[in-house]
């Protein structure tokens, strides 16, 4: 972990210097205000500020590159992560000059291209919890035999077929009495088995998240356009590489910690920029867009962790299933069929998965993941409202305010009606005055 510590130390140290630089520049701007030289000095001060920021960032990248030693037993995905972050920092610094003067259309186009690529990759590769948030009811699918149903049907069929493919070498080895649990791990097609698990649990099913993530992309395009070439890019560029078959032994705490540290430090890093943008809708949209990207990072880390837990259970299940089938074959002379193996595997993996689902760690992780997913959606809805604000449309939040007012009014009317009824009853039962 020394490298991680050094990385974070170096990063934090640089951030402190960057903030000091900003404060120093702010002080000079205040002084120039007092002296009435703000117009003359502002360009010069900005230029100085930028040069110093760039120099510090370059220095930091240099230090990080030399300090980080991938061979120090760090998982590959940490390297991917660091590469993507340093890449993002570089892009940020490359784009920054345009923000202080006139926007550079070429830089902006490049930025947007990267953003689109980033989301296209993300779209293609990820998005598991979102189908329920797209608002597409299951009843729609059930109304007719539509292509989506056929897709699911074929998906499930594939599970059977792929398990059949996995079964063939196992069966051959059993036939030749060379099968043992130690040989299972050697001859087992790990990638193929992972595909089986992906198919069942719909990991990496980009189709399901397409609508939602396309929407996110458009929000971001708009928000980023408002902010003129600012923000981060390629944050997720290398995420898609995080899904190799060897992911079972990855330490997600490391990724989670670095992600947290990075988010905090990056916020410090980008804050000076936000102080320069005037307050308003665009600035708020930029903030929300940044928050959403940050939440996506966290969501990805958590979702990957959950996926790894399911893989672990899946691998335990196939070991147990093979063991059971072998034992059965040894105990009687009957032929083991693929259906025997398939049924044993289905029963075993269901037991393993249900045990996993019932664990405290899984429940907590699922709760965190759900909250992150819904927070992303809430923020995205907020962004959409801000995006549509100039149009003559009534936004949801205003409708909600109206619904809240209606609810209160109805409650009051009911209470009054109840009181009136009680009074009428009292009047009816009261003795006449005459």
């Amino acid at each position, binding site marked *: 972990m020394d490298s991680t510590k050094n990385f974070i130390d170096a990063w934090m140290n640089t951030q402190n210097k960057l903030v000091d630089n900003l404060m120093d520049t702010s002080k000079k701007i205040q002084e120039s205000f007092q002296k009435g030289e703000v117009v003359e000095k502002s360009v010069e001060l900005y230029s100085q500020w930028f040069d110093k920021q760039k120099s510090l960032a370059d220095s930091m990248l240099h230090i990080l590159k030399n300090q980080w030693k991938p061979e120090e037993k760090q998982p590959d995905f940490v390297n991917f992560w660091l590469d993507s972050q340093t890449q993002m920092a570089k892009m940020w610094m490359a784009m920054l000059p345009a923000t202080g003067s006139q926007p550079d259309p070429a830089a902006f186009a490049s930025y947007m291209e990267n953003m689109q690529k980033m989301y296209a990759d993300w779209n293609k590769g990820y998005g598991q919890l979102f189908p329920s948030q797209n608002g597409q009811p299951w009843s729609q699918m059930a109304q007719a035999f539509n292509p989506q149903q056929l897709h*699911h049907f074929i998906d499930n069929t594939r599970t*059977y077929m792929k398990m059949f493919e996995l079964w063939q070498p196992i069966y051959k080895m059993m036939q030749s009495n060379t099968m043992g649990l130690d040989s299972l791990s050697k001859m087992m097609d790990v990638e193929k088995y992972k595909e089986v698990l992906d198919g069942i649990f719909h990991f990496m099913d980009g189709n399901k998240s397409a609508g939602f993530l396309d929407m996110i992309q458009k929000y971001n395009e708009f928000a980023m356009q408002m902010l003129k070439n600012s923000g981060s890019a390629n944050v997720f560029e290398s995420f898609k590489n995080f899904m190799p078959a060897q992911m079972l032994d990855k330490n997600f705490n490391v990724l989670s910690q670095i992600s947290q540290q990075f988010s905090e430090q990056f916020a410090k890093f980008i804050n000076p920029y936000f102080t320069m943008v005037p307050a308003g809708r665009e600035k708020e949209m930029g903030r929300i867009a940044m928050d959403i990207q940050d939440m996506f990072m966290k969501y990805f880390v958590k979702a990957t962790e959950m996926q790894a837990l399911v893989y672990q259970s899946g691998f335990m299940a196939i070991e147990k299933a093979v063991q059971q089938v072998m034992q059965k074959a040894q105990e009687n002379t009957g032929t083991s069929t693929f259906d025997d193996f398939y049924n044993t595997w*289905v029963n075993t993996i269901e037991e393993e998965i249900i045990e996993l689902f019932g664990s405290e760690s899984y*429940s907590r992780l699922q709760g965190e993941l759900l909250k992150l997913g819904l*927070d992303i959606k809430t923020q995205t809805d907020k962004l959409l409202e801000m995006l549509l604000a100039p149009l003559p449309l009534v936004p949801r939040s205003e409708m*909600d305010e109206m619904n809240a007012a209606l609810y209160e009014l109805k409650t009051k009317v009911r209470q009054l009606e109840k009181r009136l009824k009680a009074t009428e009853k009292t009047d009816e039962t009261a003795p006449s005055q005459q």
Partner: protein
Amino acid sequence: MQYFWNEIVEKTTGIPQKLNKSIDVVQHMEAIEVGTSEREPVWQMDKVRLFHYQTSHEIKVKTPVLISYALINRYYMMDLQPDRSLIRKLLSLGLDIYVLDTGYPTRNERYLTMNDYINVYIDGAVDFIRESRQIPALNLMGICQGGTFSVIYSALHPQKIKNLITLVTPVDFSTNDGLLFRWARHMDVDAIVEGFGGLVPGTFLDMGFQLLKPMLKVRNKKTSTNLWMMRTNCSTSCEWKNG
């Protein structure tokens, strides 16, 4: 090995025709009517309606029964078809049945709370029946979530309830028996409600229920799969053994 491939060819021949036929069957399937028992709406507050079932049977139990069902489904789940109907069975036994239909909520209902469902809607229906039938108390039958509401209502208004009957009603939410209880403990309900715009969709619950039996779809599809693919029966195994 030739037998093996013959079997595949045999099993896969005609699959396109079968698929076409199945699509045709699904597309021309007649609509199924549910909730066919005769009833009339007798009271309404907002979207919530109270139905009273008509009966030709002799009323043997004079105290009427109000059925409170879950919000996540509709009241006609108890009256699916003429031959599969709890309502018809209860009517045939001589019970006088009312049922509360909470309708389909929209964003207009996003601010409704449990208090509204229990102390406004159920209470309103109970008071209506008590007043119209001139009785001090009635029998309350709660099913699923409606049972939970009924238990709470009976505890708050015991003078209005003669008998409480509950079916598949969760009461102890601190139990570890069942994945849903465990999962719910780690869920941020406020984030869920806010994230779904105040109206949690049925698909969200559906996903949770599906996860309770994660391999169900794979298990069920095996039979269908066999139409498409081969099964390794003895003859296939023998082919391998020999070659």
